[in-house]
């Protein structure tokens, strides 16, 4: 929880500060390059010139979890990889978000029934904010997922609400 969170009642000043903070955070999302399988190709295409992610402020892919806001899990999550994904997510600094890109990270994808080595959805490992279906999703679909995430970031408030009243709520 931030120092000014959960102190002030909702009001004009608080919502203005909210607006500024959310605007700053959603217009400058730094994704972490987490392309594991084929969806990585579409993520690269989304980051390249035709479907530019940089025009949404989200073009600066960081290789390290320490500097990134968004982990785009693009590809099949195997049991071998699951431990690493958990550790990397824990090493990201708040505010952090996760996008499950592609059928494999949503629910196991084509390996859902018989995949002995596949985790059936990355949400068994880390909490997911946005799901982008597709196999692989087109770059436009990934961009829509990013815009939905931006809307989700826009709903964050620092005001004292019923949910965080007196409690330390994790972001």
């Amino acid at each position, binding site marked *: 929880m931030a120092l000014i969170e959960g102190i002030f009642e909702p009001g004009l000043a608080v919502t203005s500060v909210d607006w500024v903070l959310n605007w700053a955070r959603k217009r400058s999302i730094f994704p972490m390059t987490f392309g594991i399988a084929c969806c990585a190709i579409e993520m690269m295409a989304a980051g390249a010139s035709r479907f530019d992610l940089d025009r949404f402020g989200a073009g600066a892919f960081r290789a*390290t979890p320490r500097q990134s806001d968004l982990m785009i899990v693009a590809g099949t999550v195997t049991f071998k990889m699951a431990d690493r994904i958990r*550790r990397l997510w824990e090493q990201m600094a708040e*505010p952090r978000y996760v996008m499950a890109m592609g059928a494999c990270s949503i629910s196991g994808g084509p390996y859902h029934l018989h995949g002995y080595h596949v985790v059936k959805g990355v949400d068994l490992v880390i909490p997911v904010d946005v799901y982008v279906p597709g196999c692989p999703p087109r770059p436009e679909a990934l961009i829509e997922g990013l815009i939905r995430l931006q809307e989700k970031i826009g709903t964050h408030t620092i005001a004292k609400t019923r949910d965080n009243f007196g409690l330390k709520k994790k972001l």
Partner: protein
Amino acid sequence: MTESGRFLIGILLFAAAGVALGLGALLFGKLVRPRNPGGMKDEIYECGEPTVGPAWVQFDLRFYVVALLFVVFDVEIAMLYPWAVIYKSLVAQGIGVAAFWEMMFFFGLIVLGFLYLWRFGYLDWVRATGDEET
């Protein structure tokens, strides 16, 4: 208020504004950022793997040799500059030849050290191991 007094106030205000801008940005960040330390977040990053051993290892001595050589030659060049600047006036005074050979003597000593290092392989990046040297 005197002119230099006003000038001083201007400089002080400018410096204060600069410091305030930097500290203000840091303060704003401190207020609005979430703070949840602990857990796996404090672990050293190694692409998702747990780390093996400490990160503070002894570093390669080849870097020391290169750095040492650099310092020696840098100081030598620092010595060469004033000599080069007054050389023309020394020639005019008639002691140009002596000045030249003195500097060559100094330079020669240092180059001798350099040649020693070079010939005995201390500058090779990939060195032969101990048991291969004769």
